[in-house]
């Protein structure tokens, strides 16, 4: 499925790089929030069921299979954070510019 909406992305700052850093920061903030929510669920369930303690968490060592799963997850995670960089490339590949967007505004407004 396509991940970038067709149409040149507007820029708001004088330095477009700032825009990307902000997008990354917000994606990261989102993922931290997802994680925090999941951890909260786990800790509450564990506590409610008397399953494990904080010391158990500290003492845990992942198996090779678990380590591999985690690595896969990390790759997806990083791709999500760097989404905006990948999308810029897509835009360049499609030849989208601010002028090409303005041309659409003019076209649909007058034809």
């Amino acid at each position, binding site marked *: *499925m*396509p*991940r970038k*909406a067709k*149409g040149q992305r507007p820029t*708001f700052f004088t330095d477009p790089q700032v825009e990307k850093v902000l997008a990354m920061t917000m994606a990261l903030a989102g993922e931290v929030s997802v994680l925090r929510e999941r951890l909260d669920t786990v800790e509450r369930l564990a506590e409610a069921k008397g399953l494990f303690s904080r010391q158990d968490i500290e003492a845990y060592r992942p198996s090779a299979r678990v380590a591999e799963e985690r690595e896969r997850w990390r790759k997806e995670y990083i791709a999500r954070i760097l*989404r905006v960089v990948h999308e810029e490339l897509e835009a360049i590949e499609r030849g989208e510019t601010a002028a090409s967007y303005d041309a659409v*505004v003019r076209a*649909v*407004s007058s034809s």
Partner: protein
Amino acid sequence: MYEQIQHPLLPQATHDERARQHFVHALKEHLATTVSPGNRVVYEKRAKPRFVRETQRAPQNHHEVRRVMKDEPYYQIWSALQRISQEMMWDAVASSVERQLPDLVARAKQNKGELGSLTLNPDLPIPPYHTAVDIHCQPGGYHSETCPDDVAAGAIYDRAVHIYVMGRMGPLNDDLGQSLIAYLKTAYPDLQPRTILDLGCAVGHSTLPYVDAYPDAEVYAIDVAAPMLRYAHARAQALGKRVHFSQQNAERTTFADASFDLIVSHILLHETSASALRNIMRECYRLLVPGGMMFHVEVPQYGGLDPYDAFMLDWDTYNNNEPFWGALHEMDLVALASEAGFAPTRVVQTMIPSALKVARSRTGLFQGGDFAGRGQWFVFGAAK
């Protein structure tokens, strides 16, 4: 936080997907209620005085407001965050839909029941105003298909709309339909349509309320996008509503002259183009019985709005892939309707309150997501 009804077609979210979507919802709400109002302060205290110093007069329209606001760092960061929140929304929903797409396609097929109907036309051309850019940044737009019997665009739209409007269009996203019906029942209590047509129905959020509001009517709904219609039909079946969906361009349909007593549309017009709009008006005129009525729900026209409010409402034109939004809202609608044959004296333009209680939690601002603010919609209509 308002939750959406988990009807049988709505994509299921895993724990993390739900948390990711909740984050976007919370971010949008924060931007709308806490960050966005600051733009007005920046405008009054910095941008407007700067404009007055330079030109010896106040900005007279939203274009002039935009010229001075675009250099304000506060406006820049709000805009950047607003755009990012939109992209994160589609990403958070599309990734969840993609994971379960085969299951969603299967569920749509299971809901092909006997209630209503679905007629697709794979040869129907997708209008250029939909292929030029992906409207409101939904990757792939309404029409793109990635597998046979694809419903992805519909599933994504159903879930994303709820996040986009921060839940304030109700648990079934049906505020627009409900509100227009509430207005019709009050303003036209004698209206008893036997045939109703909903133009640009998308997944039928606004269509379904007409089935209950006018139980004696046959309800028809059209859209150009097949994935929306497949999903809409299955969703209507699952919710037990009888609607006839067909894939047609509202500019020129296959229905016979004088087929409908009532024609409605909900936030369709701003997603078309100048010539398409004229065609749609003419088509409404052709399809209505004499005395029949058309009503279109939209966000308000800029005329009469404070230039700052119009500027904020116009943000989507340039920053959210809504290229026709601005041009529509500056158009003379009486002239538009009368060109198509409607008598100028029979044209209605009015603001209507939202029928939903949740709408009251909207901000009073004119901005995308809150739309008209204060839970109001703009209605443009005419009788034949």
